[in-house]
């Protein structure tokens, strides 16, 4: 494949054949080598062939092969001529990250660290097929799908201040449950308020390094050693089923013969099918917002009980990293609305954007990038430049480099637990095999990923945080 190096961190696949636009990859030499090993580049090229794609098919530094679109792929489509694709969002709709700050320092919680983690582990349901504590009626579920985190706040989970610091204020307005299958609804009922398993986790962290003190302060990060809580999960079986359903429905309706890859199945955004998927996807986004809202509330409760107070446990932000959104961007000097697909990518709006909460509008939005289990995570800030570079997007995590099978062969969960313990990191998990699968050695180096983001200005470094306690689903 024709891959041109533009500079140390930018690569391009020029337009050829069926491509409507070029593809651009943000990566260092090291990361581009990893991307070459699987189908990432071919998939970026395939995305560039889709109708109505604008400017370029973008690939973030942590990208790897995904279903149709690469994970770490960003593509924006014209609303009139363009499409929407379930494969461009991913199966785990609104998989995302929420970060809470605290007034505590590491030394404040050292003695209670074990207890805190054990209590959180008790309060927050996690693991494969694990149901939640609340048995919902179908009508309540429908309300949640429409209202998202707003519903949770109405029920007493957290406060309106949390909504102010959540993407979309925790509620996508275009959501509807009307086009969601019974199966998807049924899968949504038992799983609300659960973390799930796999790469999903909840961490008690501390600030390890501050790179931009001014922005850090705006976000509520004051000093090294400050305790934070990070929650990483998504829309559970509901979102997975919506993706499965619409992939099948779109295949039946439109066929896949004209596509470079069957997995790129899509519908015109403005078509009935396109709108049905879009509105159902928005509902799954809302479900995930409500899910993280509830989990955050339980975490605060545990702090209140164990530490005596949850004072200062303000939410820093909540970001989606699997989503399609309608946003205004400038293409060829003209402002227009586009359907921006971010699959394994985080929005990174810079200063001034209306979508960014008022408290952050002068600085840019917080971008939360979780590392792999037990390694550092990063807090970045969105930039003005990212609008031009990537439709305001950057990386979302570390990205796998090793199969689960290989990880299971090489590592043992108990051994990983002991290694983390030596580094002062407590680990609680529902399965040791699951821990082995998520070994940090099976992931890319997140430090390298955020370095590329920072150097290219997709999102700038604000702080590095490291875990003290890890709960793995």
């Amino acid at each position, binding site marked *: 494949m024709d891959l041109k190096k533009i500079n140390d961190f930018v690569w391009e696949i020029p337009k050829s054949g069926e491509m409507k636009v070029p593809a651009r990859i943000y990566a260092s030499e090291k990361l581009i080598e990893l991307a070459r090993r699987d189908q990432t580049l071919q998939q970026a090229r395939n995305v560039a062939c889709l109708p109505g794609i604008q400017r370029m098919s973008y690939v973030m530094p942590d990208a790897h092969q995904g*279903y149709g679109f690469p994970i770490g792929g960003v593509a924006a489509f014209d609303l009139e001529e363009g499409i929407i694709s379930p494969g461009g969002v991913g199966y785990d709709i609104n998989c995302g990250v929420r970060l809470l700050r605290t007034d505590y320092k590491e030394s404040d919680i050292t003695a209670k660290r074990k207890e805190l983690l054990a209590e959180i582990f008790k309060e927050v349901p996690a693991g494969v097929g694990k149901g939640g504590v609340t048995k919902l009626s179908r009508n309540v579920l429908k309300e949640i799908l429409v209202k998202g985190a707003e519903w949770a706040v109405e029920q007493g989970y957290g406060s309106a201040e949390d909504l102010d610091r959540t993407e979309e204020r925790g509620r996508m307005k275009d959501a509807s449950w009307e086009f969601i299958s019974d199966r998807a609804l049924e*899968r949504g009922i038992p799983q609300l308020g659960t973390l799930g398993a796999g790469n999903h986790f909840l961490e008690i962290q501390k600030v390890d390094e501050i790179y931009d003190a001014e922005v850090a302060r705006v976000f509520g990060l004051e000093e090294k050693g400050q305790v934070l809580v990070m929650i990483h999960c998504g829309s559970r079986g509901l979102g997975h089923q919506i993706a499965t359903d619409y992939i099948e429905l779109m295949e039946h309706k439109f066929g896949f013969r004209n596509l470079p890859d069957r997995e790129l199945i899509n519908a015109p955004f403005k078509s009935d099918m396109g709108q049905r998927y879009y509105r159902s996807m928005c509902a799954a986004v809302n479900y995930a917002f409500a899910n993280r809202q509830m989990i955050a509330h339980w975490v605060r409760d545990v702090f209140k009980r164990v530490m005596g107070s949850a004072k200062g446990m303000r939410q820093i932000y909540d970001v989606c990293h699997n989503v399609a959104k309608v946003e205004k961007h400038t293409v060829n000097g003209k402002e227009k609305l586009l359907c921006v697909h971010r699959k394994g990518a985080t929005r990174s709006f810079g200063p001034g954007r209306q979508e960014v909460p008022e408290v952050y509008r002068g600085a840019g939005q917080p971008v939360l990038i979780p590392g792999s289990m037990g390694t550092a995570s990063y807090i970045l800030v969105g930039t003005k430049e990212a609008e031009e570079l990537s439709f305001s997007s950057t990386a979302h995590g570390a990205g796998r480099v090793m199969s689960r099978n290989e990880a299971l062969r090489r590592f043992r969960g108990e051994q990983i637990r002991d290694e983390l313990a030596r580094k002062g990191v407590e680990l609680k998990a529902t399965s040791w095999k699951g821990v082995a699968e998520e070994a940090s050695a099976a992931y890319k180096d997140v430090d390298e990923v955020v370095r590329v983001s920072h150097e290219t200005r997709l999102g700038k470094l604000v702080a590095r945080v490291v875990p003290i306690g890890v709960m793995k689903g």
Partner: protein
Amino acid sequence: MSEPMRFEFLSHTADAKFRAYGRNLEEAVANAALAMVSLMWDYEKIESRGKETIELRSRSLEGLLVKFLTEILYLLEVKGFLLGRVEAIEIIQPISVQSEETGAGEYVLKALLVGDNHPERYEMISEVKAATYNEFRLEIGPEGVELEMVVDM
């Protein structure tokens, strides 16, 4: 004589890819189900306390097999059912079945699944999010059937 291999896992970075074997299509599909659930629990340890009868339809064979694996995820999440073995399975080709809705031929899968409705009794490993069309390959030969699928993790 040792039992023939039911399935094996192939290399796939982000998700899980397996190849299931069978003397016929049904056996390969049943083994594909076991391959998928082996990522989530040890099916050999599941006690036979419960059973589920299912009947699924699709316009394509690939679609039908994706539906079958999706159904197993549904049964886990909604009924807490852990598949231990596929007791009986039948796949009916479309020649004999007409969809009432479209008139087009449909594939039908009927199966009897045996397992346990008490997930809390077992160690659960990892979560499968969805069955996909990714790298789908089905080869029906005189020696037997090979079926490759990728599940999203």
